[in-house]
């Protein structure tokens, strides 16, 4: 599934910049703790009563069969009244070495640093007192960059550098791997997959890095005891010796696995491997990405477990019920996963089914769609699942790995996970059972009237933490944008339907407002967590979008072009095409009130927000907007034992350090392009380093880069 970003029109802030020359901009930061009630009415009524059938689960060869042939709603009292937890046969604990649960780990050898996705480094050489002295100690340019003006599509580079085997490994959007000396940036080896540099499923060449595995007891002198994995857009998975960069001969076909061999239903595009596999024990857990909004029928979501040494398929989890797969599709896992190795569970953030904005072809329950699903690592069986959006018709893919954390609530230690979402909700559940930590209520939501559609009567709403943005009412027009457009912003917003969160897409008027939609509250950077203070850190975007459906005849008549996830999209095969736009005025100024992006800290012992601050500056044509307005964000944070939060993510291509305790900005630097990934924090030969990849994302800003920028304190 394609990335869930909104298309930020090229003129996002250009007009704002010009107008701002003439006007003093006000500060509109959202106050901490501002109430943000959601939904149209509160209710404790339970949601759907669906139960799984073995056929629905579709695990193969054995995976996914629910307990008792049907699975059951969780009866754990910790599950909220409306918490729709589907519980399955418990996984056998499978304790292994390495990072697993809520505990701190010194590793930074996976996409989110650790398998628990905490993005936490227990390193304190760099702290709040000396971070101002941080200097760039080396940078490396891969050369793998394109702005789309030449022979290649533009690049989008969201890789997190992997520190393992005393080496820094990085995948590139030209599907190469570079292995660097972590202290100097000197090349150790490079590997070129010679993959087709074509935008087969995405609008850009995309890569989110590589994965790393090593044998429990590596044999000296034997190749491929340590392996680096690289996926490509054309569905090839490469396995390389981590010491030499040579292909591992014992892995699949001489070091490369054709994952597209399993693309057997609605094979409209390859199963793009943009997200590196999740490595746990000797397993590679593999999802894939596709192409959204284009077709009604698309490849149905699957998750594969492979043997890390050989590439042999161990199990497959089919996300969609068997009878739905052919006429729908996707509900895949295109982002990172998290793992609790002690409990033997991998947590899957699952996306929405196709087509994304009309569900008349999939009116039955699809229990695992738009969910967090816990799966037994060894068997592929679903242990529990929480669906966060019922009958998703907003493309609210679950787009980041849930963050595993042990928290103390009311004096009780809870093995929890936090699932961030595009909706701006943070769902907190017990990761053993899927039961609520704080009540998650099923509340009635608005229904629509599009022929052929069905509407879920309720949706889950967390009671704590409060939503990261206030979706309860339609956003107000920003006075400056409204003035500059002679009231066009007010007229646009007034013309949009909105009856609260989950107002459904419509054919009427200018469509329905969504705050946000695919732009997301939170993107794939996910939630970072400091286990010492039990503080969660997350960046969020406040974006007003609007969705309109068109019957096929009208769509064919009026459909214009589409940008990078903004404009017209056919949903070919469905009775409705659609448009998705960001609410802008003629100057490209955001029509809604700022802030446009924030960094938020949450006390996970109480669920209360500790602080929230506008994050970064919007920037266009070089002009920076005041930081009090914030910036849309793509990418995520990392936290350290030094009491720091490191993050890029903003339009202004700056990387920053904040105080974990207060949110005060303590350090920043400019990098080549927006750093749309999570930073990596590692210790090498006794020195702490912070590494950012500055690759850019054309959706956020027309600025691409190929820079790896690494910072450390000066050596005395």
């Amino acid at each position, binding site marked *: 599934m394609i990335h869930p970003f909104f298309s930020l029109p090229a003129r996002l802030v250009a007009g704002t910049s010009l107008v701002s*020359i003439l006007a003093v901009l006000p500060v509109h930061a959202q106050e901490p703790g501002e109430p943000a009630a959601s939904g149209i009415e509160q209710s404790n009524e339970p949601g759907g009563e669906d139960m799984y059938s073995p056929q629905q689960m579709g695990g193969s060869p054995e995976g996914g069969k629910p307990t008792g042939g049907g699975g059951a709603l969780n009866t754990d009292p910790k599950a909220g009244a409306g918490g729709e937890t589907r519980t399955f046969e418990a996984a056998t604990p499978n304790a292994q070495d390495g990072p697993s649960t809520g505990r701190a780990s010194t590793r930074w050898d996976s996409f989110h640093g650790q398998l628990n996705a905490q993005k936490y480094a227990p390193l304190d050489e760099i702290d709040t007192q000396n971070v101002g002295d941080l200097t760039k100690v080396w940078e490396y340019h891969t050369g793998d960059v394109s702005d789309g003006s030449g022979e290649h599509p533009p690049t989008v580079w969201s890789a997190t550098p992997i520190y393992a085997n005393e080496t820094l490994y990085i995948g590139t959007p030209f599907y190469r791997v570079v292995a660097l000396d972590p202290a100097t940036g000197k090349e150790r080896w490079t590997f070129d997959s010679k993959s087709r540099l074509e935008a087969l499923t995405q609008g850009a060449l995309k890569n989110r890095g590589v994965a790393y595995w090593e044998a429990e007891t590596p044999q000296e002198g034997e190749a491929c005891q340590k392996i680096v994995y690289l996926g490509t857009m054309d569905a090839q998975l490469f396995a390389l010796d981590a010491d030499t960069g040579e292909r591992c001969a014992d892995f699949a076909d001489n070091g490369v696995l054709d994952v597209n061999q399993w693309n057997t239903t609605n094979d409209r595009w390859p199963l793009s491997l943009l997200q590196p596999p999740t490595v746990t024990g000797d397993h590679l857990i593999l999802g894939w990405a596709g192409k959204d909004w284009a077709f009604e029928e698309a490849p149905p979501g699957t998750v594969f477990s492979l043997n890390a040494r050989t590439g042999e398929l161990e199990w497959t989890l089919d996300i969609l019920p068997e009878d739905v797969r052919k006429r729908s599709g996707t509900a895949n896992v295109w982002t990172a996963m998290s793992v609790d190795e002690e409990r033997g569970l991998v947590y899957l953030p699952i996306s929405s089914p196709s087509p994304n904005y009309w569900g008349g072809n999939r009116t039955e329950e699809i229990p695992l769609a738009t969910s967090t699903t816990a799966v037994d690592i060894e068997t592929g069986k679903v242990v529990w699942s929480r669906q966060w959006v019922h009958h998703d018709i907003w493309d609210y893919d679950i787009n980041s790995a849930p963050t595993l954390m042990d928290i103390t609530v009311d004096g009780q230690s809870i093995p929890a996970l936090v699932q961030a979402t595009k909706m701006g909700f943070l769902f907190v559940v017990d990761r053993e059972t899927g039961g609520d930590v704080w009540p998650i209520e099923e509340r009635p939501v608005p229904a629509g009237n599009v022929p052929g559609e069905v509407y879920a009567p309720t949706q889950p709403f967390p009671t704590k933490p409060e939503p990261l943005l206030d979706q309860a009412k339609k956003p107000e027009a920003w006075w400056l944008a409204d003035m500059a457009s002679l009231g066009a912003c007010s007229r646009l917003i007034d013309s949009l339907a909105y009856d609260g969160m989950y107002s459904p897409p419509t054919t009427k008027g200018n469509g329905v407002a969504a705050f946000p939609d695919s732009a997301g509250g939170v993107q794939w950077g996910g939630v970072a967590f400091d286990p010492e203070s039990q503080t969660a850190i997350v960046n969020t975007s406040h974006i007003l979008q609007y969705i309109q459906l068109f019957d096929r005849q009208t769509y064919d008549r009026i459909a214009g072009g589409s940008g990078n996830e903004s404009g017209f999209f056919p949903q070919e095969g469905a009775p409705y095409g659609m448009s998705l736009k960001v609410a802008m005025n003629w100057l490209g100024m955001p029509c809604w009130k700022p802030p446009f992006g924030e960094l938020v800290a949450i006390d996970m012992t109480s669920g209360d927000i500790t602080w929230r601050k506008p994050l970064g500056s919007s920037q266009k*044509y*070089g002009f920076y907007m005041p930081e009090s307005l914030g910036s849309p964000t793509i990418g995520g944070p990392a936290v350290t034992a030094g009491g720091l939060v490191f993050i890029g993510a903003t339009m202004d291509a700056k990387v920053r350090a904040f105080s974990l305790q207060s949110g005060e900005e303590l350090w920043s630097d400019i990098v080549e392009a927006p750093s749309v990934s999570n930073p990596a924090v590692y210790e090498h030969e006794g020195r702490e380093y912070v590494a950012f990849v500055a690759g850019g994302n054309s959706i956020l800003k027309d600025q691409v880069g190929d820079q790896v920028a690494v910072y450390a304190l000066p050596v005395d």
Partner: protein
Amino acid sequence: MSSESSYGAREGALVVLAGGLVGLVISIYLYMTPLTGVTGSLGALIVMAASGAIAFDGLILLGAMTPGHRALWLTLGFLGALGTLAAAYLLHAYGLMAVMVVVLLGLFLVLARPPYRT
């Protein structure tokens, strides 16, 4: 008095000219140098052009002209300097901002010391 005023006006015009040239150098640096935050940006190009125009304005103000022309070039100079100041603020080009403040002082000097009796 006329002589003193002319002398002050010429000094002011020289300040404008010099400020425009320094602004041009800073703008070129901002545009050309990697990692200035505005490298290769349209905004940097705009202040580059504006700085050049301010230097040209200072050059024009150095010469003799009718009161009407002088008022015109002074007005253009103020608009250019204020606009460039605002643009520099939004570009986070604080050095350029300082230079534009100096240019404004030069323009005030020209304004305060008219070379012609009124």
